[in-house]
């Protein structure tokens, strides 16, 4: 299956990319995807991904198709073919 990952904010600065396509095995979880991204783009570790390489730093979060935020207790679920996953860090105020 193929999904598109979009980078916004700090994750875009760390990867230097607006988005990347990932070919995934069936059953790949969101946690696996974070791990894959951290492995491919080590600069994500620290500000975006925790040192364990698979947990996002709060308040970085994955969003599925601009409709649903993936909560920590949903990280073992996975995307479907054609999904767009957005890695964003939410800031409030200003």
């Amino acid at each position, binding site marked *: 299956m193929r999904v598109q990952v*979009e980078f*916004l*904010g*700090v994750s*875009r*600065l760390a990867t230097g990319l607006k988005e990347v396509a990932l070919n995934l095995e069936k059953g790949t979880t969101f946690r696996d995807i974070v791990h894959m991204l951290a492995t491919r783009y080590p600069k994500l570790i*620290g*500000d975006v991904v925790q040192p364990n390489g698979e947990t996002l*730093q*709060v*308040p970085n*979060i994955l*969003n599925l*198709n*601009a*409709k*649903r*935020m*993936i*909560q920590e207790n949903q990280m073992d679920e996975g995307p479907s073919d054609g999904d767009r996953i*957005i890695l*964003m*860090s*939410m*800031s*409030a*105020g*200003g």
Partner: protein
Amino acid sequence: MNGYSGKILHIDLNKHKTWVETKPEKWYQTYIGGVSMASRLAWENIEPGCDSLAPGNVTCLAGGLFAGTPVPVGGKYGMASKSPLTGFIGDSLSGSWLAVSFKRAGWDGIVVHGASDEWVRIFIDDDKVSFHDASHLLGLTSTETEEAIRDEYGDDQVRTACIGPAGENLVRVANVSNDGRKAGRTGQGAVWGSKKLKALSIRGTGGISVADPETLLKLSYDILQAAQGPHTQKYRILGTTANMLNMNRLGLLPTRNYQAGVFEDAELVSGEYLHEHYKAKTIACAQCPIACEQVGQVKEGSFAPAMGHIEYESLYALSSNCGVGDMEASIKAIANCNELGLDTMSTGVTISWAMECYQKGVFTEEDFKCEKYPEGFEAEFGNGEAMVTLTEMIAHREGYMGDLLAEGTKRASAKVDEERDTETYKWAMNIKGLETPGYDARSLKTFAVGLAAGVRGGCHNRSAAYDPDIKGWVDRFSVDETRGELAKSTEEYAAVYDTLPLCKFIRRCFTGKADREGAWPAIAKLINATTGWEFEYDDVDLIGERAHTIKKAFNIREGWTREDDHLPWRWQHEPMEGGPSAGYVVTDEELEYLKDIYYKAKGWTKEGLIPEEKLIELGMEDVAEEIGV
């Protein structure tokens, strides 16, 4: 009393005299500081029913409990008056060095009464207060005014809050500036202008006594360390401007006066684009280890060398919401607001209302005549030069359009609709008269009631109810029975920070989570080490409820009714166009239900009034006597 001087300074501009009021410790334990104490002072000192631009209104400043101490991000103060925009409570927060001087001068609060016959500035030199002619400062920008006064004393410890030309001209969206920070929203600058008060300067040289310096230092050091880490990194790198693309991607970015939630040129006005092409530096308030403020500069072209303090809320209002995808025009417009003393959000939303009037043929080029464009100009969406020019016209009330827009969207639309038999109120984006923030609430159903019921109007800073919606803790597209409690809980959570005050950007630095369970015990320790009190979790939680209640009580005394808790017509009747939030509105049925469950969660009546016993329970007996039911 540790942490406080116990003294409130009253200044009468009619007679140029002062007096000192003392307050009991219980009063401080109830109202603490910041917006809560400022609002309480407004409650005590404003003539009910007065015109907000008449001498019966007062401007109240309240210090921060932690200002001048080692506590990180505690260098803030609150300001309150009756708002010229809403006719209800106008409360603002500002930060940095003035807050520290304020506290070190030995005052917990300052109340400025009456109005001067001539333009005046006030100088508070520790416990001495003097009045000075300010006529030579008229027309100066906020930075020029601060520098002129500092130069006059030759002492950079003299810190100044002032108004720019907008406040002088009684522009209802004017703010008060100090140290590059703003007491914004709700038109505090117009209140100062109505008093002919150009500036208030403070030199504070005293110390601040705290109950347990050693513990306070240790607690502060731990927070300081956490504030250098990943919990605040996003603020340092991109600041709040990162929200431009976030909101755009979620279909929530106000675009062309909230006609859409996705802006096709969002990348060109994003925080990422600012960072890459225009970022000049990042600066911090006094006492702040985070340094979130992104300063953008235009280096060449017609808007050079404009330099503006760029926040998300300023940026959405003066870019996508005006249909402008030109970062240079946005920086210039924001810089104009910063220097002329205008609230960026209200100014941008009011300009976008005018642009929609032009789009729909209500206005023509002729309506936009000014000195720079004697024949007027085309004020269509996307015209960056028009947006910039309008900021200048508003600040100076120049021409028909400048004078009209200086009134804000509520009054401007009412005037135009009466004169031209139009229905421009349908796109006048305000709540209670205060222009709406950078989150389209049609698909943020919890935030919708938080905004509608907001005591200072359409404000994201006082209601944090967008948090559960945007972060996906609830289904943002629908309504259920949990939203009343959520709206209550999030607004009172925000009110704790606004009352101490502490900058909300520190909220994850106590335990890594931005929840009460993590923060309140830590904040209780900070309060206790400062004051010697014995605050616990519940006492901290009550700070927020009390702060919100005194503001609500003020509004009730000014004639608030349930109908005042409304949303802009557009959000209730025009489905969002395009993007992930397309098709949504907040129906009448949804809004009335949300108000019902919100009032119930607050312990109020169905009409939104506060029972006497509720006020007594909060320790607000005198308020209960006046407005309790």
